[in-house]
C-alpha cells in the first residue's frame, strides 16, 4: 500500500500547496485524483514519487519509508515527455537508463525499433510518451503515479497507454491516476478522490508558522 500521511508542502516562501493531505492507494487498484488546476495535483505526484520531500508528514510504501538510494519503487510519469527525456541523448540511452530492455513491453506499447536511434525532437509527443511509460515500467515498479499522462494524446494512443498501465495493475501494481478528465477517471479508476476536498487548512495549528 502506498500512503501519504498528513502531508504538508510549500514552495519556500509561499502558501501551503499541500495541506494535511492523507492518501492511500492499494495494490491492484487505481486511485483517481481529480481537482481544479492549481490545487496541488502535480505537487502531490512529486511528493509521492520522492521528487519532493514533504515539510510535514511522510510517504510510506507497505508501512515503511522509501529508501533514499537505489531504484525508486514509486515511478512518476508526467504530462510532458519532452521534459522527461534528455534532448541530447538518443532515445535508446534514455530507455536503457532503467536497465535491460523489455522487448515484450516495447511491443505492448507499439514502440518502433527505429525510434530508439533518434533524438526526442524527431518524434511526436505520443511516440515519446510511449517511451517514458516503457522506462517507468521497466523495473516492475511497486507503484506508478500517472500525472495527466494522456492529456496531450489522441484518443487511440490514450487508450493504448492506459491498457498497458491497467494490465500492470491487474498484476498487482499500485496506480495513482491524476487527471482533470472525469470521463477518463470514470473509465480507469476504482476510486476517485477530490484533492481540493482533502486539503485540511488550519489543522496545522501552531506548527504552521
Amino acid at each position, binding site marked *: 500500500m502506498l500512503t501519504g500521511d498528513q502531508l504538508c508542502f510549500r514552495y519556500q516562501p509561499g502558501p501551503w500547496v499541500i495541506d494535511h493531505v492523507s492518501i492511500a492507494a492499494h495494490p491492484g487498484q487505481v486511485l483517481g485524483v481529480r481537482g481544479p488546476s492549481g490545487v496541488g495535483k502535480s505537487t502531490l505526484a512529486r511528493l509521492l514519487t520522492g521528487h519532493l520531500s514533504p515539510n510535514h508528514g511522510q510517504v510510506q510504501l507497505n508501512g515503511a519509508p522509501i529508501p533514499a538510494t537505489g531504484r525508486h519503487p514509486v515511478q512518476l510519469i508526467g504530462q510532458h515527455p519532452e521534459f522527461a527525456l534528455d534532448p541530447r541523448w538518443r532515445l535508446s540511452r534514455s530507455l536503457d537508463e532503467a536497465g535491460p530492455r523489455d522487448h515484450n513491453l516495447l511491443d505492448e506499447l507499439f514502440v518502433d525499433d527505429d525510434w530508439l536511434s533518434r533524438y526526442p525532437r524527431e518524434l511526436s509527443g505520443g511516440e515519446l510518451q510511449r517511451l517514458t511509460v516503457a522506462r517507468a515500467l521497466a523495473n516492475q515498479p511497486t507503484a506508478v503515479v500517472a500525472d495527466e499522462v494522456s492529456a496531450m494524446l*489522441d484518443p487511440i494512443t490514450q*487508450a493504448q497507454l492506459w491498457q498497458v498501465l491497467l494490465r500492470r495493475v491487474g498484476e498487482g501494481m499500485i496506480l495513482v491516476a491524476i487527471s482533470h478528465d472525469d470521463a477518463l477517471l470514470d473509465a480507469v479508476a476504482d476510486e476517485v478522490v477530490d484533492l481540493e476536498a482533502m486539503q485540511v487548512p488550519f489543522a496545522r495549528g501552531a506548527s504552521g508558522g
Partner: protein
Amino acid sequence: MSLLNVSNLSVTFVQYARGLRRQSLEVVTGLDLSVDSGELVAVVGASGSGKSLLAHSLLGLLPANARESGDLSFDGQPLTPARRRQLRGHEISLIPQTVASLDPMATVGAQVRRAAQVAQHVDPAEAATQALAERHLDPDVEARYPHELSGGMARRVITAIALIGRPRLILADEPTPGLHPSIVTEALQTLRKLADEGSAVVLITHDLTGALTVADRVAVFYAGTTVELAPTSAFTGDGSKLLHPYSRALWRALPGNGFEALPGAQPSPLDLPGGCLFADRCPLVIDECTVSRPAAVSVGDTTARCIRINDRQAIEC
C-alpha cells in the same frame, strides 16, 4: 465553392541525414479540407498527422526545405506563396496554442497595438483598446506583461491579437492541454461565436470530445492524409455512421465510448507504405488496400479515403 479549399495537398521535407545522404520525409500526403464562411471545421488526429503543417502551409510558414504540391484556393483564387504572405494577419489569421507566442519583454498593450498597426488600423491605440474590450479585458491589462496574466486572460489576449485584422479565415491551434476546463470551454465558445458571426474557422485539436461540442464538420487526419470529412452528427452511438475505419476507432477509443485501443502506431514519414496509410492497422484490410492510395469517395455529406466503404456494414455490424 467554399472560402477555403485544400485539395490533395502534399508536403515533403528534404533532409540530409548523415554526410550527403539525402532523405525525404512525406509529412503530408493527400490532404483535403474545405471551410466556408460561417462554418467551424475541426481538424482532429494524432500528433504527427499533419494538423499543424496544414496551418503552416496556409500561412506560408513552411521551412525552406519543404516541397509542396496540391491545389489551395481562397475566395476562388489560387493561394500562391505571395498571396499567402499578403493575406496572413489580415484575411487569414492564426490563434496560436500558447502564451509562448507573446513577447515576454513587451506589455500587452504594445503587442496589441503593434498588431493593430500591421492590420493598418488608422488609430492603433483605439483599435487595441477596443479589441481587448471585445474579449472582455479592461484597459488596465495593457500595462501588464505576459507573465502577469492568468491562463484565461493570456488566451483572450492572443485571441484579440489574432482577430484585430478582422480575418475572414481563422486558424485556431488548440488551447494548451491541461489548461483549466473552463478556459478551454471559453476558448471553444469564442470560436463558435466567430463562426456564427460569419468567419470561417478551422480548429486544430486532438481533443475530439471538445471539438464535437462546437464544430459543424470534422476532418480526421491520419499520417498526413484526410481520411474522412464528416458532419459532427456522424460522431454518435457506436460510430457506424462514420465511413472510415480510423474515424470509428478514434470515436470508440474515447473513455465514454468503450475505451477501445486499436493496436499499432502511425507509419513513419520516412517509410510510408504504397497503398492505404492505415492498411497495417485496419480491421477491414484486403489485398487491394495495399496496392495504391485510396481516392476520396463521397457518400451523402461525408467524404472518406477508403475503398471498403460499401463493405463496412456487413463486416462490422
